[in-house]
């Protein structure tokens, strides 16, 4: 086993690669949710970060007040967050579909402010700890790999692939894609398009909630966790191509790894590498890596 790689300790390299893959998993899950919502509803869901934060807080609250463990939260919290999303869609977002898309962006931005403000009002800006559900790890001779982190990578990859499969390879997915292309025509086939839009929003938001639960044991559960993440995820979405499912998964994991490696080799650029990557992508391919020319 080599001691160093390109002048950095091998253990540090593997460690940051792992961190990069974990962050990449969150980027992928978050941008996937945004891509599904954008592809179907043509709405940029600015509340996505706040809904991710909500997912983490629901998991924390379920454990703190009801004693419900992580694994149940992983199932329940996305459902609860998705239900909140569906409520938002039914009562407010739906009224804006016929207008310029920026109004939906502004509405969800307002919703994000309300959510973040409320949680800061209740919990302040400090984080709440959430116990790691799988302790221990894989002790190899070059690095220590915590089980939970490996689980996060595996779980996020699995959920991403399942979502991709559902949308691109199943009958339900084909309805969804058809409704994006031509809602009127799909309606004449007797498919309830408004309900599909509602469920799509619920699914996208649920993915944000799922990411939040998975993030809870790694990062602290803090009201600020969503707004810190959402802008990076926006850059990821632009790089992958707006509304592209494959693009969001590839760009999510790819940028997570690039960011992790930047931390090893050029630490001072770690915060901005995703944005630099976005600028380069825009200069070369204005529609993103997997974007259509829409």
């Amino acid at each position: 086993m080599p001691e160093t790689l390109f002048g950095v300790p091998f253990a540090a390299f593997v460690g940051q690669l792992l961190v990069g893959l974990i962050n990449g998993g969150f980027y992928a899950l978050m941008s996937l949710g945004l891509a599904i919502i954008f592809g179907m509803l043509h709405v940029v869901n600015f509340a996505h970060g706040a809904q991710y934060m909500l997912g983490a807080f629901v998991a924390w609250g379920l454990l703190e007040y009801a004693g419900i463990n992580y694994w149940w939260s992983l199932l329940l919290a996305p459902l609860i967050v998705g239900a909140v999303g569906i409520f938002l869609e039914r009562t407010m977002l739906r009224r804006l579909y016929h207008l310029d898309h920026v109004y939906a962006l502004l509405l969800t931005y307002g919703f994000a402010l309300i959510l973040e403000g409320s949680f800061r009002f209740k919990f302040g800006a400090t984080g709440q700890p959430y116990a790691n559900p799988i302790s221990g790890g894989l002790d190899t001779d070059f690095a220590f790999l915590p089980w939970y982190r490996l689980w996060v990578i595996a779980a996020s990859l699995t959920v991403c692939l399942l979502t991709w499969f559902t949308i691109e390879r199943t009958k339900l997915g084909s309805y969804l894609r058809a409704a994006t292309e031509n809602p009127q025509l799909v309606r004449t086939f007797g498919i309830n398009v408004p309900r599909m839009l509602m469920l799509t929003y619920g699914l996208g938001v649920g993915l944000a909630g799922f990411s939040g639960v998975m993030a809870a044991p790694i990062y602290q559960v803090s009201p600020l966790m969503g707004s810190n993440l959402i802008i990076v995820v926006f850059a990821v979405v632009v790089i992958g191509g707006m509304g592209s499912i494959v693009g969001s998964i590839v760009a999510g994991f790819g940028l997570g790894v690039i960011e992790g490696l930047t931390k090893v080799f050029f630490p001072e650029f770690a915060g901005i590498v995703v944005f630099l990557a976005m600028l380069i992508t825009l200069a070369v391919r204005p529609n993103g890596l997997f974007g259509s020319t829409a």
Partner: protein
Amino acid sequence: MTHHALISSRQTVVLLALGACALLAAPWLAYPAFMMKLLCFALLAGSLNLMVGYVGLLSFGHAMFFGSAAYATAHAMTTWNWGPALGVGFGVAIAALLGASTGLLAIRRAGIAFSMITLACAQLVYFVALRSPFTGGEDGIQNVPRGDLFGLLDLSDDMTLYYVIATAVVAAFWFIWRIVHSPFGQVLVAIRDNEPRAISLGYRVNRYKLLAFTLSAALAGLAGGLKVLVFQIATLTDVSWTTSGEALLMGIVGGLQTMLGPVVGAIVVVTMQNSLSAFAESLLILQGVVFVLVVLLFRRGIVGEINALVARRRQRPAP
């Protein structure tokens, strides 16, 4: 679209005279510092409105121009001992340069993608400001001297500074008005309303958009530079995305596509900020609620709704 078309020229003169009186009398009626903050943010919202209202491109990153100009002005005046006019001018130049370079990439995409790209660019600028040695990180650049304007006016006096700021902001709004009502501005509105047609008429729309974006950035920079003169400080808040969001809130509360909208919006939002300055969380919630209400119930904003009301009155036949 503009109130100009709805109100007769005599009414315009009366309105302008009333506005001038209000500006002159304001520092005796309200705190000069409050009034100056209001003016700076009104200009920021006005510069954003030039982009959102008249070009139809929603920039979610105007804080990067506001903030980088604030840092540039503060740096020039503290480290290089430049006077206020040169310092603010330097800030405006930096903001215009930043606007031209980010605009080059951002205007290649329209609609929602434009918003997300400007937001991401602004976040890049935020990180640079956070890490660069000259910005002072979390502390910002503090105790910026106000100096003497052209060696004549001592700006350390709040009243003098107020009238200087008011003059600059009124001049900037006059400039925006001139842009919008020029042939150039008419092309911008044509691009907003029907881009393919503008292209088919032979206009190079990207050049128009880029120039508009650069001008808008420079004006936002002017607002940032003036803000440094007022508060003598440039901080990370100036470049943060919440500032971009607040500028947008002022625009839509007052009414996009109107000249006075950003001013009215700034009055509402800055008043809200000042009365809740001790409760950051409540302010966030209130701002969110205002966003939701405006978007759902009165999308034309305060000035836009008043204009619509006047227009409806006009249409009704006299009894």
